[in-house]
C-alpha cells in the first residue's frame, strides 16, 4: 500500500501546476475544472453510416468482404442448417466447439458432429482439436464490420479464438450502426455486472509483421464466417 501512497503523492504534487488545455497553449490561466470533453459527438466525426437497416446491412457486408470474412444473410433456420452442412462437408469438420444457446444448439443438432461444449468447463486440448468454434454474439457493428462478443454471450474467452474457424450466428435485430452505439449497448446491457471479457472481433486473425504483407490466421482463426438470420 505504501507505493500506492507515494505515487498518489507525486501525482497530486505534480498537478498543482495546471497544464494548458489542448489548443490553448498560449492562454492563461487554464481552467482546470471546465466541462469535460463532449464525448457525445463522436458519431459526427467517425465514418458515415446510413440510417436505414438496408444501408447498414449493406455497409456491414461491404466491410466484412474487405476484411476477408464471410458474411451470409440467411432467410430462416432451414437455410442456416443447409449452409452449415455445406461448410462442414467442404472443410471436412471432424469436431466442433460450441456453447449453450438457442442458435448454437440448433447448429449443433444440425451438424451432428462430436462436440466440445465450453460452458460446463472444458479441456483446452479438447477445444484445440476442434475444426470450428460456433458462437452467438452480443451485436454486429455496421460501421466497422465487427462482431461484439463477451465471455457470457460467446461461451467464454477461448471458443472464439482457439479453433481455426470461428462461426458466428447472429440475428438481424442485433445489427448496430456504429461504435458509439456498441459501447452504449454494452453499458445498457451489462452496467450492473460486466462480464470479465468483452471483445470487438473485426475480421479473421491477421498479421503484417513480415514485410507488411497480410497473412491471415496469425494466432487466432484463419476464417471468420458470420450468419445473420
Amino acid at each position: 500500500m505504501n507505493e500506492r501512497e507515494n505515487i498518489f503523492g507525486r501525482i497530486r504534487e505534480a498537478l498543482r501546476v495546471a497544464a494548458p488545455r489542448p489548443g490553448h497553449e498560449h492562454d492563461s490561466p487554464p481552467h482546470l475544472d471546465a466541462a469535460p470533453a463532449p464525448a457525445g459527438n463522436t458519431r459526427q466525426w467517425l465514418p458515415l453510416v446510413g440510417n436505414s437497416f438496408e444501408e447498414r446491412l449493406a455497409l456491414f457486408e461491404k466491410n466484412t468482404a474487405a476484411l476477408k470474412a464471410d458474411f451470409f444473410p440467411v432467410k430462416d433456420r432451414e437455410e442456416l442448417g443447409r449452409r452449415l452442412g455445406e461448410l462442414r462437408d467442404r472443410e471436412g469438420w471432424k469436431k466442433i466447439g460450441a456453447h449453450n444457446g438457442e442458435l448454437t444448439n440448433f447448429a449443433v443438432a444440425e451438424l451432428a458432429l462430436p462436440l466440445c461444449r465450453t460452458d460446463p468447463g472444458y479441456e483446452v486440448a479438447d477445444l484445440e482439436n476442434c475444426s470450428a468454434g460456433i458462437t452467438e454474439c452480443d451485436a454486429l457493428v455496421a460501421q466497422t464490420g465487427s462482431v461484439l462478443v463477451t465471455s457470457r454471450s460467446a461461451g467464454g474467452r477461448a471458443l472464439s479464438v482457439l479453433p481455426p474457424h470461428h462461426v458466428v450466428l447472429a440475428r438481424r435485430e442485433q445489427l448496430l450502426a456504429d461504435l458509439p452505439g456498441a459501447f452504449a449497448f454494452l453499458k445498457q446491457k451489462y452496467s450492473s455486472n460486466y462480464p470479465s471479457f468483452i471483445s470487438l472481433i473485426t475480421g479473421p486473425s491477421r498479421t503484417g509483421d513480415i514485410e507488411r504483407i497480410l497473412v491471415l490466421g496469425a494466432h487466432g482463426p484463419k476464417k471468420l464466417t458470420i450468419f445473420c438470420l
Partner: protein
Amino acid sequence: MNPVAREFKANARRLTADLRHRDLIQTALGKYEAVRDKTKAAFQDWQAARQAAAEIKWEAVNHLDRYLDEFVRNLEARGTKVHWASTGRQAREIILGIIREKKARSIIKSKAMTSEEIHLNEALEEAGFEVVESDLGEFIVQLRKEAPYHIVFPAMHLSRGDINELFTRELGSAPTQNPEDLTMIARGVLRQKYLAADIGFTGANFAVAETGMISITENEGNARLTAALPKVMVTLLGIEKILPRLEDLALFLPMLATIGTGQALTCYNSLYGGPRQPGEPDGPEEYHVVLLDNRRTELLADAEQRDALHCIRCGGCLNVCPIFRNVGGHTYGTTYSGPIGSVITPHLRGLQEWKHLSYASSLCGACTEVCPVKINLHHHLLHNRRNASRQKPSLAEKLTFKSFAFIVNRPGVYRVVKRAGRLLQKLHPLVKGTRLDPAYSWTRTRELPPIARQTFKEYWRNRR
C-alpha cells in the same frame, strides 16, 4: 560528447548510408501510408476527432489521481489484485514475486512496451524462467536477441529472407520465402508454448476508469490467447493509460488503428475486467494488474510537456519522421524511438545524457501534424534543448553568441568582418573537408553559399 550521444551519431551515420535498410523501411512505410490516408479520409471530421481525443486525454491526465483511484476501485471490486510500482525494479520484483508464489515455470507474453522499458525479459530469464514473446514481430526480434525496431512494427527492419534464415537456424524449420508459411511456422511453435504456459503476461493500450477494465488492441489474437489459457494473468501498464469513460473507446480505438496500422479497426479490441467470474467457463483464476510510474510523475510535473503523457503509442510520429526513416529504430538506443521517444526519454532517463535526441530533428513538424492526440512534439524538442542548455550551458555556444552579438551590434566592426569573410571564403576550398577547417563538422556535409560581392547598403549607395 557523452558516449551515448557518440554511439547514436556513429550508428546514425552508418544507417543513413545503408541502402538495403532504406529500401526495407521505405517499402514497409509506403504500404502503410497508402492505407492510412485512405482510412483517415473515411472519417467525417478527422481534425475534430483529434481535438476531442486531445481533450479527453487532457481531462484524464490532469485529473489522474481521481481517475486512477476510480479505475483501481472498480478493478478490485471484481477480484483483481492491483500492485503499485514506483520504479522498474519494483515492478520486476512484483512480477517475479507472483511467478515464484505460483511456482510457475513458463510465461507467455503478448506485446508490451512497458515490459521493454523495465527490461522484464532479461530479469525473468536471469531468474531461470522461460519467457516467450507471442506477437509474431516480437517473437522474431526475441529470437534475434534484439530490441523491437518500432513500437508497432517490431520486425520492420527484416526481410522475409532474414526471417527464413533465422527460423531455419533457431527453430530448425524447412526453408521458405513465403510470408504465410513463415507465419504458420511461428504459429505452430507458439501454440505449443500457449498450452504449456503457467502465466500469461500482457500490456495494455487503455485503462477505463469508469468500468475498471483494461483494453488491448491487437491483430493476431495472441493477446486473447494469453488472457484465455494460462491460470494466472498479469498486466503491466503505465499509470497514464487512463481514459475516463467506456464510450471514449468509440473514438480512441478507431483512431489508434487508423494511425497505428492504417486499419479502420484492428482485428481484436478486447476489454478485461477481472479474473474468471462466477458462471464463466474459462479465463485466469487470478488476475494481477501492475501499475508503473517509472518517472512518469516527473513528466507529469512538467506542465509544459505534460501532454506527452497523452501518447497512445500508435507509432504515427515515427512513421512520418524523416530522422526515424533514415537512422532507424535501433539507433535511438531507447525503448521509445522517433519523435515521442526523443521527447520523453530525457525525462525518463536523464536530460543531459539523452538531450542529443532532441537535436536530431529537422523540426519539420510532421510528427505534431500526424499525432492523433495532438501532442506538441516538435515544440517539446525545442523545450528539451532550452532546458538542457539552461541546466548546463555550453561555454563554446555562449562564446559564439557573445561574439556574434558584439559584431552585429557595432556597424563598424560588422563592416570589417564582412569584408574579411568575403576574402576568407575564397581561401576556404583549401581546407574544406579537412580537420583544419574550423567549421569542419558543419561544412563537411554542406555547402556555404558565397557571400554576396556587394551588400545591399553598397548597392543602394552606388545606385544613387
